[in-house]
């Protein structure tokens, strides 16, 4: 199941949800958090994570903060006000999608 293509379309929603819960996070932290939460079932690849973050940033959903950590600069992402609203919308969409999939996969048969 690991790295299933099924997750691909939901990557930005996963990122938004994590940032909503954690406040601010950096790229590496996001990959590790997802791995930890899904017990290694889902691995966000580096090649997919950063493009998704940069796209969300360009859309105005994420804001960036930079801090010097150890001997290098670290870029933190956090939700903007618009990002917070969009998270609610996207989560609602995703939940609706999950419900529809459940109905499709486990239809409740009725006797007429």
């Amino acid at each position, binding site marked *: 199941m690991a790295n299933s293509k099924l997750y691909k379309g939901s990557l930005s929603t996963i990122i938004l949800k994590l940032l909503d819960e954690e406040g601010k996070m950096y790229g590496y932290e996001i990959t590790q958090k997802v791995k930890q939460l899904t017990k290694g079932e889902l691995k966000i690849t580096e090649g997919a994570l950063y493009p998704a973050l940069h796209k969300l940033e360009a859309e105005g959903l994420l804001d960036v903060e930079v801090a010097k950590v*150890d001997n290098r600069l670290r870029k933190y992402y956090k939700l903007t006000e618009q990002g917070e609203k969009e998270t609610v919308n996207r989560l609602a969409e995703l939940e609706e999608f999950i419900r529809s999939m459940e109905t499709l996969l486990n239809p409740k048969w009725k006797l007429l």
Partner: protein
Amino acid sequence: MEKRLVNQNQIETLHSFVRSHYVEHLDVQIELVDHLAQGIEAQWNGYPERSFEQCLEIEFKKFGVFGFMEVVEKKTAAMNKRYRRLLWRYTNEWFSIPNIILVMGAIFLLYIVLGSEILNAIKFEILVGLFMVLASVALIRTFHLKKQLNNKPKKWLLEELIFNLGAYLQVILLPIHLLNFNNSLGLLDTNWGLLLWSALVVVSVLLYILSAYIIPAKAEELLAEVYPEYKLVY
């Protein structure tokens, strides 16, 4: 046991490594270097016997067969979007009432001139000429700005877009093709067609002034606004 960290020399090596893999802009480099450094440190946590080079190789492989290419490509697309938003912001700021009157006046004047008896027969050639002159001027300006950019030791993606006039040269070629098409349809012989093309010339000049002079003059300010790391680096 104390956590083993990537040292300053190794950070420099990581910068050279990402640069050698076609990541030339500092804003993209900073993020990738931190990511690689963290991955290496995490490996040292579990496998302290691994060398820096071995760990780096493992981390780089996680980016897939295309390496950093996709990250750079998508970052450029995202930054282009950001540039267009900046251009839009400055266009809106520029449109004060006196400037609107100035633009309307210029459109109307060009419309009258092109529609006059003397020039009406060669209006197509004049319009093509005007766009060609604008494209040539933009090309010279781009060369001039590029020279300035090449002298800088650190490059930022947005800075490169600004100094490249945000692909103005590619955009300005579009009306020349459209003009040819419009002429063959006879649209230039209608009043509305001529008015529309007069407006397109004026808008193109305005966009040129914005992208070639106004935005580059504010480059430092914009970089500091878009990149929180800009002030930390300088």
